[in-house]
């Protein structure tokens, strides 16, 4: 490697720095000059993403409020908000709701439905499977506000879901999002997010060579045995990645339940996820400091999940 010229924080790859035909500007660019290319991105992210996260930690330790005298002039009060937070029934409730929402709608709903769809997509001679995949895909890509609006309409007392239920003899006097807020957002989120798991598992299944599968068939394995002993072990990495990613995303879902239930999360706050709780506290109750404390607690939880994801990627790469 060409030493001397390239010392400093940057060292160009060996194969690029060995030539001797560099003019002045280029040699500036070879060395520290290239760092200039990083500046816009780092400044943008630093000011508008990292700084707010840090600022949030400070706000959570003050008595800041959205309106009133403590909106402009707030004072430092230490960790009081965190004690207040963990004594707040609504916050503990929102943790429980978010946890149940994630397990039911993502880990059970989206992952299983997505895997089933991916297995069907792999079968030969099934007509219409592309059409089904396309509709599942569209449900995932339309703006989340639109998905929320559509789901609030189909779970209205006159809506499609109520009509289907009454066809099967289940009478619904009120709108479903009113009587069953939690169930509605769970189902809506399965609808919204299954495509990701389907695409991920389809890709993982395509990575399995056909002959392995056929060998098992020749040996007389039943479809279930083939799935359990051949397919499943080969896609276990994909399953882990899928679980972690959909957990992170589902944990952060805001728009869909906001559109269907509003920030209160429906009757008895049964559907108030922590994301709605933060909005509710800050905007409806003006309690910005408490909301900031809540978002920091959740940030730490999400961070732990993300680190688990990164760790699992590393772990599998070693194989």
């Amino acid at each position, binding site marked *: 490697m060409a030493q001397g010229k390239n010392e400093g*924080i940057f*060292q160009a*790859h060996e*194969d*690029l720095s060995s*030539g001797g035909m560099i003019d002045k*500007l*280029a040699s500036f660019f070879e060395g520290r000059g290239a*760092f200039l*290319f*990083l500046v816009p*991105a780092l400044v*943008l*992210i630093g000011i*508008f*993403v990292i700084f*707010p996260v840090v*600022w949030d930690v400070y706000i959570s330790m003050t008595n*800041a409020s959205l309106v009133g005298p403590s909106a402009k002039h707030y004072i430092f009060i230490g960790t009081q908000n965190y004690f207040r937070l963990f004594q707040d029934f609504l916050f503990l409730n929102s943790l429980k709701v978010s946890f149940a929402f994630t397990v039911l709608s993502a880990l059970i709903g989206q992952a299983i439905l997505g895997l089933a769809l991916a297995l*069907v997509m792999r*079968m030969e001679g*099934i007509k219409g*499977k592309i*059409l*089904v995949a*396309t509709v599942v*895909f569209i449900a995932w*890509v*339309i*703006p*989340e*506000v*639109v998905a*929320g609006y*559509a*789901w609030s*309409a*189909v779970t209205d007392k006159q*809506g499609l879901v109520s009509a289907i239920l009454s066809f099967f003899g289940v009478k619904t006097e009120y709108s479903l999002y009113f009587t069953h807020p939690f169930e509605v957002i769970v189902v809506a989120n399965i*609808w919204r997010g299954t495509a*990701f798991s389907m*695409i991920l598992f*389809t*890709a993982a299944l*395509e990575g399995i060579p056909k002959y392995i599968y056929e060998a098992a068939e020749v040996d007389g394995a039943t479809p279930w045995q083939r799935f359990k002993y051949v397919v499943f072990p080969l896609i276990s*990495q994909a399953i882990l990645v899928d679980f972690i990613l959909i957990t992170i*995303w589902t*944990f*952060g879902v*805001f728009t869909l339940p906001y*559109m269907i239930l*509003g920030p209160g999360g429906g009757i008895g706050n049964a559907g108030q996820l922590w994301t709605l709780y*933060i909005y509710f506290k800050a*905007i409806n109750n003006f309690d910005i400091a408490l909301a900031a404390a809540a*978002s920091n607690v*959740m*940030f730490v939880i999400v*961070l732990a999940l*993300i680190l688990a994801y990164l760790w699992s*990627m590393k772990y599998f790469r070693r194989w």
Partner: protein
Amino acid sequence: MERNVLAYVLVYLFLAVVFAFFVGPLLWLFLSAFDPNASPVFEIPSHFTLDNFKKLLVPVGNVIPLQWILNSLIISLSAATIATLVSVISAYVFARYTFKGQGAMLTTFVILRLVPPIVIALPIMMLYNWWGLINTYLGAILVIAALITPFALLIAESFFRSLPVEYEEAAMVDGCSRLGAFMRVTLHLAIPGITTIWLLSFVTAWSQFVIPLMILKNPALMPASVGLSYFFGEYGRVDYGRLSAFSLLFSLPVIIIFLSIQKYLRKGIAGLVSR
């Protein structure tokens, strides 16, 4: 053989139920947009009409709904362009140089790309009150661009890594400076990739909700996502026909873009499993 037939029947039954589940809300949305008497009821309209679309020019409060689509265009086009520009140039540095803290920075980008926007929505609202960026296009554009950048940067970085370094070397041997090689050779080779990054950034910006909800309170400045929720929530009687027409118009660009980059998206998702 009999088992096989049964299996096929079960598969088709499964597909039919799944199809009905997924198509139901979408079909209602579509039908009600053309229905003169739209309501939550799922039905074929007595006749199809474009009136609901024409009504998008009739003010809600004192803003016409089409203004919200225009606002979304202003914000998303600018945010996607800024995010693409800043991430492409820095991704090049990440892909072609090794330097201290590189790994840590990339890890930070992965983390930032996965953090839910609500976490920064609240402090951004407070900071914007302080900086005077509340209720401005500029404020919305900058924060949305910043949110998309880590994601765009990671895609761009892996893209540059996949481009062979030999073309650049050849250009440099022929007397190009490194900067020249980047501008004249690498960027040209990267045009399809950069287009994809821009399109992905655009759709991400287009669908943003919670951040604009907190910083754009003035109905005249709202993007379509916030406008839709405002339109839906503020008034006692919901005008379903108009809302559905608006929703269709708002979803159309995203659906077109996603269907056209589907293949790339599949590859990207496959890359999540095996890197």
